């Protein structure tokens, strides 16, 4: 098991998820024996079984196997749902939970033999009870049998022809993987006479011996390697040791946490209201109490958040092994550097970014990093470098995957895209280099000259992008031919509460997440310059585009019209306040009439028609009950960037 340590974390978190599914559905199952519910439960039990036998937790896999069996019978209507069966499932879920917890703590959990028996009894339909139930056979192979698993296959095939195989010890999966010494046990439900079965099995090559097992006799697991370990099934009393550790964990459904988070949000709003109401009273006591309340709310909010946060390490841990394996396959030398693996993010996000990341890293190994020979020719270090980093920045989590490989050529990308019919020649001629790079995210485009089994099937990057967008995140790419490529994923923290700045523009109040604001400045209109009619300002030698919020949202901007007139002579001389937003390395300046103040805001997601308004990330309820939109700095900055770019290009 030792080598699998790294996967333990993933195993337990995933196992708990399946357990969650089982327990959720067990509740519904009692009410109605819906086929879909049964199918879901079956899948969950099946996955758990597979996972646990792979990692070597045989007791868990044994229990889930029997559950799976029972579920299958319910699904195929061999059995009908009863309260008793539902109760059994609850017991199983509880038992599994305890087993998982014990195992996670490194203690040994035993499967409850008595529970197993009751389960297998339950899965026998009444008619079948007359038939010989569960004949146990211990099959022993000759020592040094070559291809034991194939022999086992022959044995099991014969048995399958004679009845129903109920259970194997060790589990069938282990037998297939040759994880048994010389013997294994098969429980079979059959109408054949036991001597008949034995004589047929003996006729198979390399079978040394077949002996029947009386049901009371407890089977002994014999696995390769840990023969001396007292077999888990041997626990005659069969109860799980409910140790002192078990109570340390409480399983809570995710939506309960969401509800709590929401309530904390309401508290924040309420506190703001209280502050406003209390202001005219000018009471020191009230102020003090409110401050204390604020601190408590803050702590409460942090604790709820913490419950949902997990370190990204869970995902990152699988990559060193993957990169090593892939680079060996491809004959490349690659070093993987991981940074910021302790960065935490919401659990639900962690679960979903694993696949996109696998894809991106495979791409880096496959297409990004060159072969040692190529690298030598390019006077680069023979060993390629892939850097994986995660960090907190401006209210988002950024995950970057960069390699110092061959990079991408925008012109080449365009050619491929034209050839594959993703864009027309005409469209291509209009694309800037940056826009051309975006082509990698289009469906049907793969720049790999040759399709390999690692990546480059032309599906993938578009899927990666849509996964991220579904999470409210985004992905961008930067590359320099010959020097490497960096993919950057931006993900929300799913912080439902952020620190925001309230600003007034044309009598509308907007909220800007404080992390997105670089600085607020006051400048004379004289300093405004124009590039192709687009107003920009120069701050510390940096050209920053100016964006009018009302205009962005399609309204008229009385104050702003002056700025955009091409004739600078006519701009009235006055001071204006500008708020400079930053996203990545890009900035945009937004004229603001008034800075109202900073406060904690609760993000409420916008539903329906309002969801996809560019520039708006959500809305919040202010202390006075008004609703204010929250600006999405990323979109605004991107807009500004495009405009300046256009201007610079066409100048």
């Amino acid at each position, binding site marked *: 098991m030792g080598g699998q340590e790294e996967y333990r974390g993933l195993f337990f978190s995933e196992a708990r998820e399946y357990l969650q599914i089982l327990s959720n559905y067990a509740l519904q199952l009692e009410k109605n024996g819906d086929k879909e519910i049964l199918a879901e439960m079956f899948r969950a039990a099946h996955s758990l079984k597979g996972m646990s036998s792979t990692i070597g937790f045989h007791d868990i896999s044994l229990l889930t196997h029997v559950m799976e069996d029972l579920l299958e019978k319910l699904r195929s209507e061999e059995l009908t749902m009863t309260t008793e069966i539902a109760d059994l499932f609850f017991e199983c879920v509880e038992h599994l939970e305890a087993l998982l917890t014990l195992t996670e703590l490194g203690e040994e959990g035993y499967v409850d033999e008595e529970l197993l028996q009751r389960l297998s009894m339950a899965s026998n339909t009444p008619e079948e009870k007359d038939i010989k139930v569960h004949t146990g056979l211990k099959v022993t192979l000759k020592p040094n049998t*070559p*291809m034991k*698993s*194939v022999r086992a*296959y*022959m044995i099991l*095939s014969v048995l399958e022809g004679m009845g129903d195989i109920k259970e194997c010890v060790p589990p069938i999966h282990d037998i297939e993987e040759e994880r048994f010494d010389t013997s294994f046990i098969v429980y079979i439900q059959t109408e054949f006479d036991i001597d008949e079965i034995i004589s047929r099995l003996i006729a198979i*090559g*390399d079978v040394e011996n077949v002996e029947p097992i009386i049901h009371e006799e407890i089977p002994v697991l014999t696995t390769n390697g840990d023969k001396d370990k007292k077999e888990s099934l041997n626990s005659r009393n069969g109860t799980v040791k409910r140790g002192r550790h078990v109570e340390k964990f409480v399983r809570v459904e995710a939506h309960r946490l969401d509800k709590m988070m929401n309530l904390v949000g309401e508290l924040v709003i309420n506190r703001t209201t209280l502050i406003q109401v209390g202001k005219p009273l000018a009471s020191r006591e009230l102020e003090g109490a409110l401050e204390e309340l604020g601190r408590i709310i803050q702590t409460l909010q942090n604790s709820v958040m913490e419950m949902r946060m997990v370190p990204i390490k869970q995902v990152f841990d699988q990559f060193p092994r993957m990169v090593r394996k892939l680079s060996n396959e491809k004959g490349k030398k690659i070093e993987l550097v991981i940074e910021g693996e302790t960065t935490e993010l919401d659990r639900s996000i962690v679960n979903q970014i694993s696949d996109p990341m696998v894809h991106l890293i495979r791409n880096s190994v496959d297409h990004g990093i060159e072969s040692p020979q190529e690298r030598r020719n390019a006077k680069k270090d023979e060993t390629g470098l892939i850097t994986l980093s995660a960090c907190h920045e401006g209210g988002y989590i950024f995950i970057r995957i960069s390699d110092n490989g061959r990079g991408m050529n925008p012109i080449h990308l365009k050619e491929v895209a034209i050839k594959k019919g993703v864009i027309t020649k005409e469209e291509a001629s209009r694309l800037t280099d940056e826009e051309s790079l975006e082509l990698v995210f289009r469906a049907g485009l793969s720049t790999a000259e040759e399709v390999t089994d690692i990546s480059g099937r032309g599906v993938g990057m578009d899927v990666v992008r849509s996964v991220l967008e579904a999470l409210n995140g985004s992905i961008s790419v930067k590359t320099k031919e010959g020097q490497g490529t960096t993919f950057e994923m931006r993900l929300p923290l799913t912080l439902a509460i952020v620190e925001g700045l309230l600003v007034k523009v044309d009598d509308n109040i907007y909220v800007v997440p404080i992390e997105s604001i670089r600085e607020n400045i006051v400048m004379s209109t004289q300093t405004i310059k124009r590039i192709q009619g687009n107003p920009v300002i120069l701050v510390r030698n940096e050209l920053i585009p100016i964006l009018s919020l009302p205009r962005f949202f399609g309204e008229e901007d009385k104050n702003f019209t002056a700025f955009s007139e091409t004739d600078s002579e006519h701009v009235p001389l006055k001071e204006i306040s500008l708020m400079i937003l930053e996203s990545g390395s890009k900035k945009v300046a937004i004229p603001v009439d008034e800075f109202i103040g900073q406060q904690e805001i609760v993000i409420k997601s916008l539903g329906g028609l309002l969801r996809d308004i560019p520039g708006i990330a959500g809305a919040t309820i202010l202390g006075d009950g008004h609703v204010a939109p929250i600006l999405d700095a990323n979109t605004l900055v991107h807009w500004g960037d495009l405009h300046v770019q256009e201007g610079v290009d066409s100048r």
Partner: protein
Amino acid sequence: MSKRVLIVDDTAFMRMMLKTIITGKGYSVVGEAEDGLDAIEKYKELKPDIVTMDITMPRMDGIESMKGILEIDPNAKIIVCSAMGQKALVIEALRLGAKDFIVKPFDADRVVEAINRIS
């Protein structure tokens, strides 16, 4: 009457090994084939009681050859010979109708046992 065996293997060395083992135990080797196609021809011609079939061979592999033979004679008794690590292929062969398998390097007793069992 002693059982008549057809040996199919692309290496002359392996054929000789098997032949020695088999004839030593009183069976007669009626023919040898060097590849899958050859095996089908020889099967038609010789009608052996038992075939030992190597899996990896040029022109036509043992699996395909088996299919061909079983088409001609669904009761053909075929023992597949495999190298270590060809588990999946052996299972496929068994599924297709091979009666047993032996693993290289050959253990004389196991070979004889296999032949004994199916004759």
